[in-house]
């Protein structure tokens, strides 16, 4: 089965399915094919892992926050709004 799994789903197509795979949007057949390919292909396994690392790293980017001045202005605007 190993060669079939690879031939049916070339690497170039597999890498376009990574997000669908991670979001669980593949049909059961496509999912099985995806996983069979990954099991046989070290490059694609590396690719998938690097996509996961990229996503996790993006999630660790520190938060942006409003400047104190902008925040104070907003709270003042809220008090104005309330008293209208």
């Amino acid at each position, binding site marked *: 089965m190993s060669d079939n799994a690879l031939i049916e789903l070339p690497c170039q197509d597999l890498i376009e399915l990574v997000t669908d795979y991670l979001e669980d949007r593949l049909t059961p057949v496509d999912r099985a094919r995806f996983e069979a390919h990954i099991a046989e292909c070290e490059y694609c396994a590396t690719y998938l892992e690097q996509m996961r690392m990229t996503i996790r*790293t993006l999630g660790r980017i520190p938060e942006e926050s409003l400047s104190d001045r902008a925040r104070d202005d907003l709270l003042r605007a809220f008090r104005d709004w309330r008293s209208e």
Partner: protein
Amino acid sequence: MVSTPPDDASLVRSLREGEEAVFAQLVDRWGPAMLRVALVHVHNRAVAEEVVQEAWLTVLRDLARFEGRSALRTWVLGIVINLARSRGRAERRSTPTGLDASLFSADRFRALGDPWPRHWAIGPTPWPTPEQELLAGETRRVILRAVAALPPTQREVLVLRDIEGLPADEACSALAIGETNQRVLLHRARSRVRKAIEDYFHATEPT
């Protein structure tokens, strides 16, 4: 990362009743995501802060009309996104979007006549830097620059989904886009950021 508030109805009631502490809490909780999504369209931090402020003023003005058809956070994010989009259109000199050109050069994959057509010719190799250190040093700049260089439609989705951690359905409603489109944009954005990291490591590889 922001989480869905437990009870929108009570939040809206507190705001309408003028509870400043609740307002301040929401500004602090949702402000970071609002600011980040505003920065997709306006390229100046001060202007982005103005957009966030304007969005909150719009929220207060329209609060009486909020019907709870979407979550409060989704509604607020939708407002900031719309304001930032129109502000960005006014600010932009030209639109260098272009089509999503193929991410990889042709030699990365085997040719059609090959016994293994469209499989890797030059496959990815493991990165030398451990994941925990990707946000340190030079790779941090590489990642932030790659995000900043994404086309706005892709960057909006990436910011909400991967950076702010919103679920797909909420990102779709805030951005007013369909689920499939959202997934395509997210995938392109992620692929580009991954590729930027790879390119950086290739360029710095000892030879």
